[in-house]
């Protein structure tokens, strides 16, 4: 799995690619001229790969400041006749939605594919939004690949479909497609983006309510295409007793479940490659032959509801037919129906129940059994990395808030620093919603003084998030005279999604050097006073935060220190505990470094009764050395 496979110009060759790489490959084969994205898991690697290949393939790629801007840029390319791809996670779709709902009404020209990655189970997300509902709201065609091969195939097909319909097409991928690796048979690579972009004087792309009818016509056209579209497929006996309707990885689970249960002659699988609009005739044809239908999909019962409505409209044709899935509670992961991911076992259980065949699924207790075999396997909490500047920032904030003594309110949002709501951030963070939302909430709280609200308010935001979504709230705060302290936890990168560049870094996705736009330039231009401090200087940071908490109005503190995972590549001092100076449990700190401060590199040497630094984990920040009351931790420059 690598970029080498994505760039390989050998049509017909089968290479191992992740779903994300396969989408990038599909975009290359489609001859895109423009690619844009704001990094978000699980699809952050799509643009990462495209940006690396943009130079040699002659197209443009960028990390945009947010998904709305990314989509508008991609739409522009489409209007000018260049195929464009725009990639975002489900949360990003919410940001871009206003433009997206308009684009499907105004129409587009060259193929515009919007890749939206959903994260069932929230492996790296705060929510598990099912973006298909929003795609439907936006009157979009929604395609759902099941594996990397389909991710490539459907990406290529989506561009054609978009041009046929003159509207954006949405490709919905889930984590198990994005991050899974699979064999992908490559197609041909075009020489480069076709034609010179041009925006004809007579062309119009207007959003206007009168064009609503046009949207519906486009969907009707798509539905007709879907009836015979190869990605909408049926697998199984001609007259199945049970029909499974599925899409995405659910198809793979269903296929395996049928095989495991030996139900190949009783169960048919209808795989929807196009989840919206539904190929109604195709569906009805198979629904008529079955007496039971089981829906297998993630996360919400999207097909179940839409096909359920289709069934209701055609009751006489399909009767008798019973519907099973999430609402009947047959398809459920460990957390229950409609919550989190599903797996093969969940489908096996549902099918076995429907078919009336006994089946013991593999005991889900294997985790517990493994634990019994490996005694003392410690739990591993979510937490900041060793040396993370956020840990120092949160300790300084905790200290300053306690010293201030007025029960400060701490508001956050999405990023590495969301862990501020856990032990790793000393449970400081009190709200988490969307990108930049802590700033808007702070803006609101900061105006409640007229009702006697007198708690200090702190909003936390990451550097990348600052550019993404904090600026309008900051302008509103200044305009409407709010009062709060905005702390920008600036680790000089978009750390959480894999260190993508942002406007403050002075480099673009293509690796070009550009003038950096600092947080203090932006805030300063808004007339908001800005202080910059290094969070590794914990004592100094405490003083600065304490002082700023006592000031009025809107003020910004930038706590700037490069992400430890980045800086440790350049410089990594050796940090160790001097066992002569550490007094172990005789110290009043009660194992501060390993137990309270919580850096994963700080451990307790039970045999010696002393603190210890796990040098394999340590990133050399040395903050623990500044906090140890005995001065027992030594920081030594290496090399």
């Amino acid at each position, binding site marked *: 799995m690598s970029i080498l496979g994505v760039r390989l110009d050998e049509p017909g060759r089968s290479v191992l690619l992740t779903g994300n790489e396969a989408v990038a490959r599909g975009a290359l084969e489609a001859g895109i001229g423009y690619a844009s994205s704001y990094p978000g898991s699980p699809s952050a690697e799509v643009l990462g790969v495209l940006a690396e290949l943009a130079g040699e393939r002659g197209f443009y790629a960028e990390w945009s400041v947010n998904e709305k801007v990314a989509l508008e840029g991609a739409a522009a390319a489409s209007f000018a006749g260049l195929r464009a791809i725009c990639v975002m996670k489900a949360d990003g779709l919410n940001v871009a939605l206003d433009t997206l709902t308009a684009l499907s009404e105004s129409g587009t020209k060259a193929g515009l594919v919007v890749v939206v990655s959903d994260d069932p189970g929230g492996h790296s997300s705060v929510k598990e939004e099912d973006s298909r509902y929003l795609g439907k709201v936006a009157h979009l065609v929604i395609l759902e690949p099941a594996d990397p091969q389909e991710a490539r195939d459907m990406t290529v097909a989506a561009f054609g479909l978009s041009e046929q319909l003159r509207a954006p097409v949405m490709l919905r991928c889930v984590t198990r497609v994005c991050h899974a690796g699979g064999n992908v048979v490559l197609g041909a690579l075009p020489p480069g983006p076709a034609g010179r972009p041009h925006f004809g004087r007579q062309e119009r792309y207007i959003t206007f309510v009168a064009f609503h009818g046009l949207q519906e016509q486009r969907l009707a056209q798509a539905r007709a295409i879907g009836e015979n579209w190869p990605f909408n497929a049926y697998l199984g006996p001609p007259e199945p007793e049970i029909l499974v309707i599925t899409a995405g990885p659910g198809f793979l689970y269903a296929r395996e479940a049928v095989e495991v249960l030996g139900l190949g002659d009783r169960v048919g699988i209808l795989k929807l490659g196009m989840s919206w609009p539904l190929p109604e005739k195709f569906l009805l044809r198979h629904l008529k032959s079955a007496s039971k239908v089981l829906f297998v999909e993630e996360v919400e019962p999207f097909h179940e509801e839409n096909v359920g409505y289709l069934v209701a409209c055609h009751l006489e044709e399909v009767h008798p037919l019973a519907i099973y899935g999430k609402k009947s509670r047959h398809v459920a992961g460990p957390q229950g129906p409609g919550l989190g991911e599903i797996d093969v076992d969940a489908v096996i259980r549902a099918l076995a129940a429907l078919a009336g065949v006994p089946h013991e699924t593999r005991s889900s207790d294997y985790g517990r059994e493994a634990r019994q075999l490996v005694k003392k396997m410690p739990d591993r909490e979510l937490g900041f990395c060793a040396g993370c500047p956020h840990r120092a920032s949160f300790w300084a904030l*905790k*200290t300053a808030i*306690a*010293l*201030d*003594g007025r029960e400060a309110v701490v508001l956050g949002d999405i990023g590495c620093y969301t862990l501020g709501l856990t032990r790793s951030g*000393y449970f400081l963070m009190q709200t988490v919603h969307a990108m930049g939302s802590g700033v808007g909430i702070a803006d609101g709280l900061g105006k409640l003084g007229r009702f006697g609200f007198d708690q200090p308010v702190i909003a936390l935001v990451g550097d990348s998030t600052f550019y993404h979504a904090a600026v309008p709230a900051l302008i509103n705060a200044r305009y409407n005279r709010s009062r709060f302290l905005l702390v920008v936890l600036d680790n000089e990168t978009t750390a959480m999604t894999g260190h993508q560049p942002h406007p403050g870094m002075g480099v673009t996705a293509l690796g070009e050097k550009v003038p950096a736009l600092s947080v203090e330039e932006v805030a300063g231009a808004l007339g908001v006073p800005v202080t910059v401090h290094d969070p590794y200087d914990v004592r100094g940071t*405490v003083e600065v935060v*304490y002082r700023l908490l006592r000031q009025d109005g809107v003020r910004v503190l930038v706590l700037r220190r490069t992400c430890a995972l980045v800086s440790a590549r350049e410089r990594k001092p050796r940090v160790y505990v001097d066992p002569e*100076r550490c*007094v172990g449990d*005789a*110290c*009043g*700190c*009660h194992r*501060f470094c390993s137990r*309270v*401060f919580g850096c994963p590199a700080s451990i307790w040497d039970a045999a010696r009764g002393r603190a210890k630094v796990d040098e394999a984990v340590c990133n050399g920040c040395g903050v623990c050395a500044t*906090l*140890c*009351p*005995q*001065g027992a931790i030594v920081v030594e420059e290496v090399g």
Partner: protein
Amino acid sequence: MSGGPDDLARKVLQPGQCAGCGLCLDLCPYLQVVEEKVVMIHPCGLKEGDCYRVCPRTPTDWEDMDRSVFGAARADHVLGHHREILFARATAPEIAAAGQYGGVVSALIAFALGRGEVRGAVLTAGAPGEMPRPALAENPEEALACAGSKYSAAPSLRALHEAARRGLEPVAVVGRPCQVLAVRKLQRARGLEAHHLAGRKVAWVTGLFCFWALDPAFYAFLRAKTGDARILRVDFSPDSLLVHTDRGLLSEPVDKVRGFVRPACRECFDPTSEFADVAVGSTEYDEAWNTLVVRSERGEALLRAAREAGVIEVKPYPPERLPLLRTAVLNKKLRTLEAQAARGESSHLQLSEGYRRALTGRDQP
């Protein structure tokens, strides 16, 4: 009497009884200070702690302290152990001028640092009219830079930990009576090696006379009064605050300042640093001299050496002034006993019936 951080928070910090000595700071990362207010930022979870043991405001057996510091019970229930009570002053005019009164404290510290008897001195620095801060002086010049009275509770014993960390030993400590008591409690505590080393490295303790310290809000009050003028010196007469500025002398009735007195100081039982080796204060009589109470053998030896070297001169304490000092101290002690009774909290003072009777002239109610 043992206790932990929870007890410290409940009995000392929350009721405003912290004297701000600074000794608990830096024993752990959980006690921090801002504007002379000590705050516990995180519950460490220990049942017992050095913070509780060394705090001058946790239960303290007064007579037991006498025995551990001086090896004997006190004869004088008001002024504590004393070998001599004198008027004293620095002979060097520049030291005398730098000091608040006779410059005795500065002279003794500079002398000891200069002779190498101590390698560091735990002091309090800060310009007149500004919030003071802990200082660790390593030479006479640095010590002299700290001359002059400070009127709020700088947590200057932090510098004792700093000295221990830097391996600077032995050190001299100059402190308020509460700080003297804290150092003595540290010195006699047993069991926790590292922190006690700091206590054992204290060669001697010079205590100050102190009837109260002010909240740092006093400095804002001062700035408001003085405006743009530069504050050269702050002093108190029995009934006035006196502020010498580059634009002249400002005077305010002392009543206007009383509101700034640190609540903990209203329950102070020791205005004359009873557990110090030597205690130094004003004379309330002659600004060119200090009152010097020589309490311990160590203090006596230090004074002898300083006199032999000619850096300190002394004269007898005027006999007619002694009752005034005694009355002032006794009244402070009695006010404290009343204040504690009124607050209804269990007192940090553990006094025997005999001592209490000797002081009040009556049995405990």
